[in-house]
């Protein structure tokens, strides 16, 4: 427990990142990244890789900065005026935060799914093809093809194929969340960012989405925030444990859950924490 106490006391600690993670090919590498809301620092010098084609889970107690980190990857935090950052992230070796980066182009290379499903007030079809629409795609054939492909990818096609032109809001919560996932993968992104995608869902819907993540593995690099340790152990390849804005330990999921280096991590993932 002494490390976490040290963090709480404001001391700097070394993140433990296992060699097995560092050895892999990364898609996003976070470099000494800090983030401030006004004066208040939310992230402290985080450095970690997100491995290409694999699922990385972010775990940690509430308020530790998981969402903040996730939202930094596609620069959603730009929308908040008070945010200031230090450090950088690299997407396939290119800087994300350099002044010359076009945020809009950057975001198009990432798909994001939020904690609460947020389908747009338009038809299911329009919801899915929204990223293409804003790119000015008008060709009905292309749109239809992408729509079907994405909905199949999100395991929703069979349920909605007969009602594509009904409102996206007419779906159930679980279906809405899968619709959002379909929307996120419609533009064929390199990275998928999922912020507690199952927190508002029942076990069956959660199961479906976990299956979905499992199938998307390999095709996409996925960064997922979750509070559910079982979920993290079931679906992720790597797990990062954060605490009060700092990365504490990161390793392959099996390592984290069976024999982590730090006893604090073990306490947290086994639920003995706090």
């Amino acid at each position, binding site marked *: 427990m002494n490390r976490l106490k040290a963090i709480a006391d404001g001391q700097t600690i070394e993140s433990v990142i296992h060699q097995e993670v560092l050895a892999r090919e990364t898609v996003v590498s976070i470099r000494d990244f800090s983030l401030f809301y006004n004066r208040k620092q939310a992230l402290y010098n985080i450095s970690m890789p997100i491995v290409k084609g694999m699922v990385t889970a972010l775990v940690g107690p509430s308020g530790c900065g998981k969402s903040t980190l996730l939202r930094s990857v596609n620069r959603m935090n730009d929308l908040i*005026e008070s945010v200031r950052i230090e450090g950088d992230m690299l997407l396939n070796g290119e800087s994300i*935060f350099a002044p010359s*980066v076009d945020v809009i182009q950057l*975001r198009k290379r990432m798909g994001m799914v939020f904690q609460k499903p947020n389908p747009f007030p*338009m038809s299911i079809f329009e919801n899915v093809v929204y990223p293409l629409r804003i790119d000015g795609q008008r060709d009905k054939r292309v749109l239809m093809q992408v729509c079907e492909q994405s909905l199949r990818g999100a395991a929703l096609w069979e349920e909605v194929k007969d009602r594509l032109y009904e*409102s996206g809001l007419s779906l159930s919560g679980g279906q809405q969340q899968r619709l959002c996932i379909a929307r996120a993968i419609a533009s064929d992104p390199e990275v998928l960012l999922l912020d507690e995608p199952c927190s508002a869902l029942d076990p069956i819907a959660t199961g479906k989405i976990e299956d979905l993540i499992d199938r998307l593995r390999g095709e996409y690099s996925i960064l997922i925030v979750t509070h559910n340790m079982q979920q993290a152990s079931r679906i992720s390849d790597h797990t990062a444990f954060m605490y009060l804005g700092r990365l504490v330990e990161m390793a392959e999921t099996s390592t984290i859950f069976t024999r982590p280096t730090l006893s604090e991590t073990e306490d947290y993932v086994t639920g003995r924490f706090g």
Partner: protein
Amino acid sequence: MIGPNSKRSAQAQIAAQGEPMVWLSGGMFAIACLMILSLLAFVLWQGLWTLWPRNYSIYTRNDGSLVGGELYSKHFQDGQNKLYLRVGNYDVSNRHFAYVSSLELADQTPWADPDLWLVERKEWGNLYGFPKELSWTKTTQDHFADQVTQGMRETAKIDRQLAQAKNELKRIDGDIAEARLSIRRVELAEKVDLQRAVESGSVEGLSPAARRAIGQLADRNRRADDAMVQINERIAELEAKRSERSVLFELPIAQELGTLTAPWSELSAGVVGDVQAFAKLIGVESNASSPAISVEPVGKELLLCKVAVEDQSIRRFWIRRLGETTCSVSGLQEHTILLADVVRFFPTNRLGLFQRLGVYAGRWWEFLSGAPREAGMEGGFFPAIWGTVVMTIIMSMAVMPFGVLAALYMREYAKRGWLLSLIRISINNLAGVPSIVYGVFGLSFFCYIVGGYIDGGPKKAGFEPWPSAVWFSALGLLALVSLAAFAVAVLSGQAEARRSPLRSMLRWAGGLLWLATLVGIVWLLIKSPHFQGFYQAQLPNPTFGKGCLLWAALTLALLTLPVVIVATEEALSAVPNSLREGSYACGAGQWQTIHRIVLPYARPGIITGFILAMARGAGEVAPMMLVGAIPLATDLPLDGEFPFLHGSRSFMHLGFQIYSLGFQSQNSEAAKPMVYTATLLLLAIVTLLNQTAIWLRANLRKRFQSSQF
């Protein structure tokens, strides 16, 4: 134990149960409901009741005089019933309405004669009387209705021809006025005085344009002279034909003829003893077949006597008791009206329920679709309804783009800070500014400055133009500034996607440059030495430099702007941020997010604001008085005449009509019933608008309803 006698104090007990609060709040609720309901009931009752055809009843006063009328209202005051009677026959009695106290009346039950007819006329209001004679045909009363209906059809034809002829006159006048205008334009353009040339007809040494204009005027004058003679002849002919047909009525207004000696008991039993004396008194020849006299009592001391004279028409007389054996005899005043003046006529005391409903419906139809008569006290409100609707529509078309875009900027683009809060508070306060202030502003800014500018250029609007050279150099400067503004806009558009310190600097610079451009354009406009106005030739008659439809609509647009901004802002802030974030996460830009997600989602709220503004605007009266509404307009602001929408015309407005009828007309007491009806109409229009809003919003909402889980 837990029960009423536990340790809690009685006070705490009551507070805990909250029973008194239920009663208090419930009572207040009931009072509020009652007030609203009574307002509605009052307007509804008064408004609906006004047009209903009532019985015309004749009352006897203590002094024996008679007073007749339709009973409009009756209220108890100072121990007596006050009757409000529509006495009509204005051309004879000089009043439309009269108050009668029940204490004055000898007999509380009035007499409603079944033979009495009500005639609604184009002038002088209602006439109540007994038809006696038609000038164009000799018939008895039996065919009166048919004869009059037929006659009216023919006079209507004459009236149509007359209107046509008058229109033609108007057109000729218009042509000549136009020709004069073109001469005036030439005068202004060439800075010459053509007055002499016009008078003398000699055009030597004048420019071709001047010659053409003078020639045109002379030509039109010549042709007008010929045509005018013809038309005037035709009009005179038609007028003569129109006044050919008239109807003679006996009005229920007594004219004393003399006294008669006869026992009252006999008379009231219907027996006239001394027929000779009676016949002499009433001026009817009595011969072998003495006049057929019938007498019926209509009050305790009053008899109505009908005498059939030779030509079988019936004459009526009143016999009033003076003593046991003496009584006074009165005839009825005779009055002739033109058939062409008749609008509607019916035997008001004899109508069954359905006939009454028919008359009622007919009056409503006229009220909604007809033009006003008698300075608005009679007839229809169509021009007022039309004016209100047209003005409101123009107003909303003006206010919506401004309001929605302003709210969009404030909610979506502007940086949050004290300046924005200050502006928001000001806008909210603006919604509470008394509307007459807007009226004053509209009059002095729109009518006099902008209108004056349009009419006669900067000088007319009160600005001193710059010399030409100064103006052109200023124009060059403005061109540079606007070019710079444009360049900065393009640059900052490119910088938008990036996070750079340059961006905010460019934004500031761009904003300032745009502002400078805008101010510059306005300044150059008002300082221009080269603009003399579009309607200079019409001066000193103002075209736009007075109250008119356009300025009224713009004034109201300004007045409702806060409503629209506040409603739109509310609608925008009700858009969940998660939707915006979802859109940005898909790689959408700000405008794409606004246009594809935010605006559609906020649409119901924006439309609500729109309708609220419309309802507010439609009911606003105070500023209308200053910027263009008039009590009686001859032309509609939107009609079939090119260019269809006449922004420079004054117009009639329902709200203003209520005010001017009820409080400004010469006979406002008489106009009161109409005021209630107009109020009801205004209420109905506003309710209709609000109802549309609610329906529209509900329909749009359906599309956005989420079935969570």
